[in-house]
């Protein structure tokens, strides 16, 4: 392991570490545009220059591996002057349209100009003009004038997705990013190019002109879109609610996790948060009686559930839990089932069509917590529950989250099953044809409105946190179940998701020893599972 000195501080780094990363470990930021740790070295932007003793000229840090005894200076006058020059070069043809640019506030041209530029502009000639507001694909918009030609987006499509849609066309200061003839930026990870674009050249069509980034708040979370469990940040707009027509989740961004998704996430996950603010959200507990809908208080709703459970023998009661629920919810359900002696409990419902899967991040299982439900032993046969219901042998049925009409089952089968039960109870954040038929429909908060954990397909337990308050009267599923339990006389002490997690850790061996603290920001493996190889670029 080479030991080197950067700005007077010594550090030992693994062989092959470049100077940007070595400096980062010391808390020293070497400004750069084209370098990205997830992509090959391009060496194009020329901003990451440092002085290395015994080297005649400033050298780019990105392409220089640390060597033993190397003495590096990142703050010499010469380096600072070089940075200033490079900043000027980056900006001479830039349109300086920050007031109408979505990137403003998180733009590395703005940041580095303030940190390393601050020169008096000298460019008095006509700037080079290039195409603006060019849709590259369903999610990404290009403004070629703002582009600094760092080639990160091109390298992403070449190296990570290996779809090669983008190229740099023309030469000199007429160089511009564009699509190869016949190509569209439709790969399943296209949104990532917006994240890695250091400037406002690539913007997110979903986010464009919605809200200024400085009004956003960020919360660490986990994507609920599939069994991978990509780590994400949820950006919400609480401070300017009138800016995006009531849309509270402004955008979702991947959050680095070396072992799960590294810097990336798929488009389906990124743009899949719409259900949170959809008109289908359930906001009040309701009772449906012969086509008549009545709003209930939570107290009334819980009492009605307990009443139904009390009237139905345990062997005629069934629960269809959901792999979209958090571990905490599932363990509360498990506790309820055990307390009431309900043995017909399942969660696995066939999807309407097989899920798409690739060899990078996307999993065919579009549920974030199938593994958790399995580990808790909730994997009863759901087909059987349906058949039993049709045969009037299940009289009370609790359905969590699922729209049973949107599955691989025949609609007529589902309809006859649901019509046959005496009491259908639905719990979930969004209404559907299933909740429409429920005698009792109880609003659960969405994942971004609460604490919880999911267990990924590889057995990694990962935390998500509340970014927003719940809509209407919605409360977390674990709390709904907890209230039912308490109302049936069972002792319930859990008042937070974390309490249910503790109970889970104590009750299910796979989760033994895990705590919210040990899970932290990057997750922890359940017992007996080993992390699989981190997601690598395709092929």
């Amino acid at each position, binding site marked *: 392991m080479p030991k080197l000195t950067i700005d007077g501080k010594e550090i030992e780094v693994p062989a092959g570490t470049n100077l940007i990363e070595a400096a980062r470990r010391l808390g020293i930021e070497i400004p750069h545009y084209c370098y990205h740790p997830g992509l090959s070295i391009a060496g*194009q932007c020329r901003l990451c*220059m440092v002085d290395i003793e015994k080297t005649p000229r400033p050298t780019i840090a990105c392409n220089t591996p640390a060597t033993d005894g190397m003495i590096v200076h990142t703050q010499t006058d010469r380096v600072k002057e070089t940075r200033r020059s*490079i900043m000027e070069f980056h900006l001479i043809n830039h349109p300086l349209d920050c007031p109408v640019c979505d990137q403003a506030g998180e733009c590395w041209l703005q940041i580095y100009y303030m940190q390393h530029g601050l020169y008096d502009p000298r460019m008095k000639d006509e700037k080079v003009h290039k195409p603006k507001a060019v849709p590259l694909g369903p999610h990404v918009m290009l403004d070629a004038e703002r582009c600094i030609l760092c080639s990160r987006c091109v390298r992403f499509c070449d190296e990570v997705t290996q779809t090669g849609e983008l190229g740099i066309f023309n030469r000199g200061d007429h160089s511009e990013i564009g699509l190869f003839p016949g190509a569209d930026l439709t790969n399943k990870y296209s949104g990532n190019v917006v994240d890695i674009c250091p400037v406002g050249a690539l913007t997110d069509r979903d986010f464009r002109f919605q809200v200024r980034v400085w009004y956003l708040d960020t919360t660490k979370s986990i994507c609920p879109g599939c069994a991978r469990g990509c780590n994400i940040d949820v950006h919400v707009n609480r401070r300017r609610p009138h800016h995006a027509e009531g849309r509270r989740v402004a955008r979702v961004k991947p959050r680095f996790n070396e072992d799960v998704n590294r810097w990336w996430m798929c488009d389906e996950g990124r743009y899949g948060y719409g259900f949170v603010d959809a008109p289908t959200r359930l906001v009040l507990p309701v009772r449906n009686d012969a086509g008549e809908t009545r709003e209930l208080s939570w107290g009334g709703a819980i009492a009605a559930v307990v009443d139904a459970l009390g009237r139905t023998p345990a062997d005629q009661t069934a629960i269809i839990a959901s792999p979209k629920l958090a571990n905490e919810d599932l363990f509360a359900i498990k506790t309820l089932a055990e307390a009431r002696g309900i043995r017909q409990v399942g969660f696995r419902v066939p999807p309407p069509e097989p899920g798409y899967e690739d060899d990078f991040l996307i999993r065919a299982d579009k549920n974030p917590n199938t593994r958790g439900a399995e580990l808790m032993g909730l994997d009863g046969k759901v087909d059987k529950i349906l058949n039993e219901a049709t045969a009037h042998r299940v009289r009370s049925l609790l359905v969590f989250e699922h729209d049973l009409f949107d599955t691989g089952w025949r609609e007529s089968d589902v309809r006859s099953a649901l019509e046959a039960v005496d009491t259908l109870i639905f719990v979930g954040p969004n209404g559907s044809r299933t909740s429409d038929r429920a005698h009792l429909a109880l609003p659960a908060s969405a994942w971004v409105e609460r604490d919880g954990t999911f267990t990924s397909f590889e057995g990694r337990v990962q935390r998500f946190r509340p970014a927003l308050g719940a809509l209407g009267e919605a409360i977390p599923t674990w709390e709904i179940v907890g209230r039912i339990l308490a109302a049936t006389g069972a002792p319930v002490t859990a008042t937070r998701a974390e309490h249910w997690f503790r109970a889970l850790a104590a009750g299910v061996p796979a989760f033994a020893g895990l705590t919210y603290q040990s899970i932290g920001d990057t997750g922890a493996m359940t017992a007996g599972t080993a992390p699989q190889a981190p997601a690598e670029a395709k092929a």
Partner: protein
Amino acid sequence: MSEKILSRNFGVKDSHTLKVYRETGGYTALAQALGREPAAILDEVKKSNLRGLGGAGFPTGMKWSFIPKNHSGPVYLVINADEGEPGTFKDRYLLERDPHALIEGMIIAARAIKSALGFVYIRGEYVEPWRRFTAAVREAYDAGYLGQGFDIVVHRGAGAYICGEETGLISSLEGKKGWPKVKPPFPAIKGAFGQPTIVNNVETICCVPHIINRGAAWFAGLGSKTQGGTRMYSVSGRVTTPGVYEESCAITLRELIERAGGVSGSGRLKAVVPGGSSAPILAAHEIDVVMDVDGLRNAGTMAGSAGVIVFDDTVSIPEALMVVARFYAHESCGQCTPCRESTGWIYKMCHRIVEGKGRKDDLDTILDVAKRGAGTTICAFYDGAVGPYISYIEKFRGEFEALCQR
């Protein structure tokens, strides 16, 4: 006048054919080389003081010795026949009039570096040279010189100056956009298709058979102390008889201009670009300079590609700079920021000055921008552009100022 080595057959009818090449002693060096160990050939070339004639003047033998000794995969020999440097047209003569010299030199060089495959990257506009060279390659295959452990692939460029920069050439050869690559790694370690690669200029390799035939000492003696051999000077601009002149590297610029019949036009010399457009300009009083790599370097310019462009005193230096600046703005590959942005910017300023809309501070801005960008880029293209930007203005500032009235 020195002995003609490289151009000895230029006047001979059908010099491009195998028959004539053989009749004038062609392929005898190859026969000798085949009897020698690779290391012995390399050593001979080292001792000959042969320096690259493509532009950088790097000692050829030393470059060859950078090929990793323990490499087990293929090693490639790439011949740079892109000849894009303005004012340079010597490789064209060699390809058209003595293509077998290049083939023979390649086979010998390949033996020295243990390469089984050579590429010749020919500038797209060079149609006739390409025809002649491919015909010669066919003859060499038929005669059994090629295909016996060494093959040649001829590749045509598409007319980009940057594809003459050795790593830009390699990118282009690999089927990519002709973008120079970040170094390290250098081509000798990781070049074409990721394998160790030697890139040499046409003329450089044409010297090799002569070194083998007549010995390193003889070759070294033809030139200056630090550069062996003769070289082919492309002389153009305001001279009476423009053309390619083979002379010793030890000739002075004044003598060379005389060889080309002296200054034409007004007959009064104003300035000379001694080594292709990237070489800083020399004023009329600076031409008693020895034309080898070190002589020109000491004079603050460079031997480059030996493209000598002569300006008489009717030439407007600001206009000349504008033309040169337009060339660099047009040809910058656009990959790295300082070069991409400032070549265009400087051209705009030069253009404005020539149009009479220059401001006094434009000159200082050009000089400052050029100096700030120099040495910060991926390839030497930008440093090549900086040569004229700075030297034209610094040496002829009055002419520029006269145009900048504001």
